[in-house]
């Protein structure tokens, strides 16, 4: 945010803050290590508010749980903002000194009275009021979020609405106050840092706008870089649809099962001319591939670095040799380059890293020896004397403020694209469970006593209304497709709300149901909100008696 794609705060600050909002996050199950830091804060007296349509394991720890209707985050945020402004609890000095656009923002939230906010979100006005006051009055407060915010068609607006609250109250750029997206893997942050996003070079340097950075990379690489943003995943699928993208090279990703509207995704992938997959497992996507490049497991079979949610770059060391024909990723890329007529040599991971340091100013001071000596360093770290940055945006509190002011962004509340109606009356939201990970590629090979396979989780009331028992197989249909799955009665759900995971796509293809309604800026699909119908299956026909006439199968 404000130009740098990372959380603002360190884990130590999470432990020492006074108030934590977990917004669209069930960190208890999906970010269990981070949640330990949250629990330390809670045990030291920090207040915890959890915003989640489901009463999750995280919500059980909360002082207040907001069981909002799916997709009403902006309504909640705008209502809190109006309440803060009307109670005179906004940080006027900070707003005047360090932000822009406050007047327009204040005017835009004016219509969000507590009554309207309560009506739109489903959460009582007194809890909204209480939390707004608690957040504004806290000495230190942070908002942490995950996919409940970003897996919506208006993902970027959802993030803006949280940033607005922090700017309104001055809860950013200070020790213990911040805005933190929690990262779902040990190195999601590192992927972004290294430029594995279509609009940035390594170190978040803009491909289109930062000509100076582009020139530095061109000189170092001896190649021309087009000043043009690439496609993100969603745009790639759109390009496949148009026939413009005919070949893909997939590294460590399983789009055949992870994308929304899975049937359509498969159709597009099967129509391509050529697919290369580089992965440690033979994923469903790899099964479609023309060439599979077996790679090494990055956490134990490769040298390198990872970056975690607090922007800390850490060393990873090779403990085992990759099995069989598997190679280190660097080796694969260099050999591929050689076959394509470019000599990348055979650099060590440290040589690759040192090149990165010479081109990405925010990593410049992170020599391997320093990463080892200091137990990792948080970016930005501009030279070898720099200890790194515990928190970001301290400049907003400098006197005078350095750099451009942080802008408020006016955001409008919009309901999910997949509307509820009489045919599809139940809101399905998807997510993860503690013991499994995404499409199960990384977790399915290990047994867990907690794993119970896919189910449609439904409230006791809905199960009673439908006349279905726990474990009974039902048909689940959305406007895009239909699957069957066993029902699990879950009293953490309220009537009208259902939950499924995407962990077992070979059993139940949940993403047949989800909608490919994407945010134009982030490209993330609205996995969190599909409209579904649940139907009891007719009783299974009794099997043909022995001796009956066998009908040949067609």
């Amino acid at each position, binding site marked *: 945010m404000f130009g740098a794609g990372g959380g603002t705060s360190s884990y130590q600050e999470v432990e020492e803050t006074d108030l934590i909002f977990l917004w669209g996050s069930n960190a208890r199950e999906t970010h269990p290590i981070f949640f330990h830091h949250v*629990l330390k804060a*809670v*045990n030291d*007296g920090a*207040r*915890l508010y959890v915003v989640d349509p489901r*009463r999750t*394991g995280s*919500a*059980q*720890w*909360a*002082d*207040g*749980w*907001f*069981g*909002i*209707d799916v997709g009403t985050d902006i309504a909640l945020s705008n209502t809190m903002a109006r309440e803060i402004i009307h109670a005179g609890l906004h940080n006027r000095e900070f707003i005047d000194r360090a932000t822009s656009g406050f007047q327009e923002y204040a005017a835009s939230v004016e219509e969000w009275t507590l009554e309207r906010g309560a009506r739109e*979100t*489903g*959460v*009582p006005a007194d*809890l909204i009021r209480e939390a707004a006051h608690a957040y504004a009055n806290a000495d230190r407060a942070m908002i942490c979020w995950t996919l409940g915010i970003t897996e919506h068609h208006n993902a970027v607006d959802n993030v803006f609405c949280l940033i607005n609250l922090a700017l309104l109250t001055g809860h950013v750029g200070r020790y213990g106050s911040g805005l933190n997206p929690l990262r779902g893997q040990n190195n999601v942050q590192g992927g972004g840092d290294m430029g594995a996003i279509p609009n940035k070079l390594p170190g978040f340097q803009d491909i289109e706008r930062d000509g100076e950075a582009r020139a530095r990379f061109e000189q170092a690489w001896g190649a021309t870089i087009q000043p043009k943003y690439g496609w993100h995943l969603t745009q790639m699928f759109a390009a496949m649809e148009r026939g413009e993208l005919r070949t893909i090279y997939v590294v460590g990703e399983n789009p055949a099962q992870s994308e929304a509207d899975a049937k359509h995704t498969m159709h597009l992938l099967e129509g391509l001319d050529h697919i290369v997959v580089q992965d440690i497992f033979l994923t469903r996507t790899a099964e479609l591939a023309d060439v599979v490049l077996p790679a090494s497991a990055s956490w134990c079979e490769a040298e390198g670095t990872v970056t975690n949610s607090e922007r800390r770059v850490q060393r990873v060391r090779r403990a085992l040799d990759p099995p069989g024909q598997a190679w280190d990723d660097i080796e694969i890329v260099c050999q591929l380059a050689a076959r394509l007529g470019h000599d990348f040599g055979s650099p060590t991971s440290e040589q690759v890293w040192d090149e990165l340091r010479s081109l990405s100013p925010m990593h410049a001071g992170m020599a391997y020896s320093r990463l080892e000596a200091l137990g990792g360093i948080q970016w930005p770290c501009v030279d070898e004397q720099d200890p790194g940055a515990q928190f970001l945006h301290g400049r907003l509190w400098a006197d005078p403020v350095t750099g451009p002011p942080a802008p408020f962004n006016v955001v409008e509340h919009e309901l999910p694209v997949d509307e509820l109606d009489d045919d599809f009356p139940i809101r399905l939201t998807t997510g993860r469970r503690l013991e499994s990970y995404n499409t199960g590629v990384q977790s399915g090979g290990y047994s867990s006593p907690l794993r119970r396979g896919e189910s449609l989780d439904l409230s*006791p*009331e809905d199960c009673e209304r439908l006349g279905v028992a726990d474990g009974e197989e039902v048909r689940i249909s959305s406007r895009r497709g239909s699957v069957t799955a066993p029902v699990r009665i879950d*009293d953490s759900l*309220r*009537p009208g709300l259902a939950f499924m995971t995407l962990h077992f796509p070979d059993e139940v293809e949940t993403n047949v149901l989800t909608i490919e309604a994407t945010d134009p800026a982030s490209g993330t699909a609205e996995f969190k909100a599909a409209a579904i119908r649940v139907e009891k299956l007719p009783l299974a026909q009794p099997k043909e008696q022995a001796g009956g006439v066998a009908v040949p199968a067609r």
Partner: protein
Amino acid sequence: MDLRLIAGEPSAAERDAVDAVLGPPGSSWVGGDRGEDAQVARGGHAARSQRHLLLPVLHEVQGTIGWISPQALGYVCRRLTIPPAEAYGVASFYALFGLEPRPPLVAHVCTDIACMCRGSRPNSA
């Protein structure tokens, strides 16, 4: 520390015993009827600040029901936001709390020296 609550509902009598000490549940999520407050819950520090009522609640359940069933213990944990392992640790520490069904009337005979001097031994035969 984690909060993985015991499944299963307490009997009406067990619920009444717990509520007699803690007051009625504040929302359906801690044991009230499922209904209007499906989208809100409060707890956290307010619930845990009643931790000192754990022993009085266990006494009440033991006194009125005669033993502390897993479901009753689970309900106590849900009301106080206490991990079941912690509440079980307390309940199982004291011999006078029963974690299995007991006869309606249980006589305890003290085998301490002072009581023996006062003639308790014949009673324990």
